[in-house]
């Protein structure tokens, strides 16, 4: 499995933002421009480096590439092992693209809250936390040692906790603690299951190990598999979040600064769905098949229930959070439908949802900063004052409802198509979610941007300021990627599909006999 590459791509990619965080944290507080420029510089360097890695990745090569391994805690068989398959690679690319954009979008977040109160927060701390978060997120997707994965999975909570809690809006304390405690409760179960798995590895292999490759070869009894599966799955379902573990996300998404929320929903939560693909399915194949109907049901409930709740929201950020829960339901259906189309669609969805919802959150953030409020009822007819911003908002909204021609369409379509061949009724019911999606997006747009101009809007001085140059630079790459992947997703699908097929073969399922549109890529 060892790749040809001698260059330690993944460890450098993980460490670079950490170095950046340390450098930024030590910069003087009274020079915010220097701090921001340094943070942006580091995140761009990470992005460039990730680009190199993408170029070095061999699409037809081994399943896991860029493998590196260093000793860490020999007594427990723990190693710093990094490796990336296609699924991890696209997520790493998403992180690398989204982080500099979010840093640029959050340029003033540390100096004032999004409702416009001047903040007294430390600018270096804010950007150092963002970079530290990037480091831990990269680690989650790059780890090939389950212990290492867990370490990053937990460590991710700390910077996010402070980003929400220190720099967020009105209910930030409540939201930060809720986020942390929910995640921690989930990962406590994960840790218990992890130790269980490790004990089994000691029994079967003679030596305890956390190496993913070895653990996936274990022969675990059915009953044990089910318990371990549940330990892993609940942690991931809290993180993703799936119904009924989702209630923390609207609070966190609503309280976090917009840029942080974009990272939270766009990338961090994907650790949950990624974990299901990388750990639940290959490590516990029998249990995965056993629980798949149950997971499909809760994912389906998530799709419909969260979409209905989204329609009822009056707070833009909470609304976007609920739409994400609905989308995570789609991803869950894609993962547990067990066809390569649906699986590929789910992974592609993880990327395109990151782009689309990331954009939506950032644009909402721009609106909230201008109006000083996130309540839909405080807007109305804003499109007349902000023509360009409302245009971008519309594009983000359409991408979010998976309009053909935008990237999420391809992924949602693949998920539904793939699910249809194995779980007809799930796919049919999930299609209702698409309709509801059109409802919440269009109604949100209508209430904020169209109709008669809300007279209070003209009193907010910043409402007359359309997109600034900085904001154009923020939204342009995301809009471009959404449209590009909407018409030409092939390069990404080519990377994803072999990894998904390998995952499904670990699971021991093969695609059903083609009934209709099978065979196209």
């Amino acid at each position: 499995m060892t790749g040809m590459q001698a260059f330690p791509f993944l460890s450098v990619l993980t460490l670079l933002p950490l170095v950046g965080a340390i450098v930024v944290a030590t910069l003087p507080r009274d020079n915010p421009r220097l701090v921001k420029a340094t943070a942006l510089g580091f995140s761009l360097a990470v992005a460039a480096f990730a680009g190199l890695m993408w170029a070095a990745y061999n699409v037809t090569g081994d399943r896991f590439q860029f493998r590196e391994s260093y000793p860490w805690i020999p007594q427990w068989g723990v190693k710093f092992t990094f490796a990336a398959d296609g699924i991890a690679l696209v997520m790493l690319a998403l992180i690398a693209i989204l982080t500099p954009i979010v840093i640029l979008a959050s340029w003033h977040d540390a100096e004032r809250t999004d409702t416009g109160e001047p903040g007294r927060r430390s600018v270096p701390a804010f950007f150092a936390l963002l970079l530290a978060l990037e480091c831990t997120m990269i680690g989650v997707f790059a780890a090939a040692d389950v212990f290492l994965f867990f370490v990053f999975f937990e460590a991710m909570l700390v910077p996010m906790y402070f980003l929400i809690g220190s720099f967020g809006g009105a209910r930030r304390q409540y939201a930060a603690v809720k986020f942390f405690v929910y995640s921690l409760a989930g990962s406590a179960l994960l840790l218990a299951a992890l130790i269980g798995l490790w004990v089994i590895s000691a029994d079967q292999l003679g030596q305890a190990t956390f190496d993913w490759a070895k653990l996936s070869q274990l022969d675990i009894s059915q009953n044990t598999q089910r318990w371990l599966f549940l330990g892993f799955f609940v942690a991931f379902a809290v993180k993703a979040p799936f119904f009924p573990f989702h209630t923390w996300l609207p609070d966190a998404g609503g309280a976090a600064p917009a840029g942080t929320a974009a990272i939270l929903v766009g990338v961090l939560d994907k650790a949950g769905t990624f974990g299901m693909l990388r750990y639940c399915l290959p490590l516990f194949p029998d249990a995965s098949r056993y629980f798949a109907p149950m997971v499909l049901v809760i994912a389906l409930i998530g799709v419909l229930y969260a979409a209905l709740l989204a329609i009822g929201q009056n707070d833009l950020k909470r609304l976007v959070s609920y739409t994400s829960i609905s989308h995570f339901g789609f991803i869950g259906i894609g993962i547990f439908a067990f066809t390569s189309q649906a699986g590929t669609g789910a992974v592609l969805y993880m990327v395109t949802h990151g782009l689309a919802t990331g954009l939506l959150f950032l644009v909402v953030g721009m609106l909230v900063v201008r109006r000083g409020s996130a309540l839909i009822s405080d807007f109305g007819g804003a499109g007349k004052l902000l023509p360009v911003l409302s245009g971008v908002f519309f594009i983000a909204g359409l991408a979010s409802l998976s309009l053909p021609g935008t990237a999420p369409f391809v992924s949602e379509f693949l998920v539904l198509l793939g699910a249809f061949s194995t779980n007809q009724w799930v796919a049919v019911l999930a299609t209702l979610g698409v309709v509801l999606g059109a409802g919440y997006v269009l109604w949100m747009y209508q209430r904020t941007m169209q109709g008669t101009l809300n007279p209070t809007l003209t009193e907010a001085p910043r409402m007359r300021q359309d997109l600034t140059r900085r904001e154009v630079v923020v939204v342009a790459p995301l809009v471009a990627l959404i449209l590009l992947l909407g018409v030409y997703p092939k390069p990404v699908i080519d990377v994803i599909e072999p990894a998904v097929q390998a995952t499904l073969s670990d699971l021991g399922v093969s695609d059903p006999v083609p009934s209709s549109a099978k065979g196209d890529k």
Partner: protein
Amino acid sequence: MATRLLAAPELKLPDIDYAALAPMLILFGAACVGVLVEAFVPRRLRYRLQVSLAIGGLVAALVMVVVVSGRRFTTAGAAIAVDGPALFLQGTVAVLGLVAMLLIADRTVEPGGSFISQASVAVGTPADRQQSSQPGATEVYPLALFALGGMMMFVAANDLLTLFVALEVFSLPLYLLCGLARRRRLLSQEAAVKYFLLGAFSSAFFLYGVALLYGFAGTVQMAGLRRAVGETDRNSTLLVLGLSMLAVGLLFKAAAVPFHVWTPDVYQGAPTPVTALMAACTKAAAFGGLLRVFVIAFPVGAVDWRPVLVVIAIVTMLVGAILAVTQTDIKRLLAYSSIANAGYALTGVLALNREGVASTMFYVLAYGFAVLAAFGIVTLVRDPDGEATHLARWAGLGRRSPLVAALFTFLLLAFVGIPLTSGFTSKFAVFSAALGADQVALVIVGMVSSAILAFPYLRVVVLMYLSEPAEDTPTVSVPGVFTATSLTIGVLATAVLGLAPEAVLDIASQAAGFVT
């Protein structure tokens, strides 16, 4: 096996390996010299002399522990075992005691030190004014040395009587130390009395248990007890009663539920450096005793006591975590957290195998460093009346004193068990040992309890960082050299044991073999 004294008709002194006893002898010797210093040296010289004596003694004891390490035998008529666990825990007691001693010795944070010698002088009297203008008591150093020496003896005791003597030797000075606070004297004395009364009770239980076990086995030596437990013709009623009473005494010191009720009051009332000493060193010593008694002397045989201890561990983890949620005083919060941590360490004991012993020892070491540093920070947050321990007073501390708040946050994250801190590696160690021994219920409850316990810790973080500072937010004193050193050691150790635990894990797992 060095038991050859019984053969001789006349009383003969047993062979004594003085090198092996040196760590204890050094501490007791230094303590005795300290008593003489109190008696004969002028007051103005005492402080320097006592501090050097205490620190020098601890360093020398630690060096001797390292020198002796690697050997396994019993000495002094098999009363003292020199084996891996004993030496590892003696080293632990010495290192943690050294860090705690630095906190005790600090006189810059609280001018004159945290202690006074005549705690019973009524507040406001001329005697009190005179006393409060003088630098504090120096009796605390020999007292603390006696306590630490007793703890070292406790973890090495190879028969139940020695165990009892050691228990008393380390408990009595602690009762006294609890009552010597310069500030909030009433609370401090209340703590001392409570601790003394309940401690005396538990000692009585312990001693009665020893007597019953002697009746059961005809010996108090660990090896003899082990042999007797394996025989079937003995009276198991005596064994059950004796062992449970012995366990009461040990679990009392370890602060396990339901023998924990003293902990919050005593931790809150005692001078904070003494609280730190108790939380770190007493816990290490208590678990040393528990390990030796339950792993060596009473293997599971005719009487399976495991279910009882499992229930105690489960209740301890849950009660500690749940009651911690409601606390409003930082010292009480840390007290309840220390109760829950006793439960986690018990999880390691209950694995009842080599990994269990190693992981428990690693746990008490890692926890000791973190808790010492945490109490060290508590001593720094002050207002004109002394330490500001009410949590409401900590609001906005992160704004006022970013460094101290950041260090405390790091320690709290370690208590939560976030990876890359010693809290995670140590929890991992005990839970994996327990799961390896099929104690699934313990591990699951442990995980649930740590998730519950995260909530009170996070509340403190929220208060420090996410709340606005109040008008009367206490100031954070600049720590003196002693406190700064102990904080640095505690925080660094917490980080190192989290990032690169392999060296210490290695020592612990090599040291996990008992000798009887």
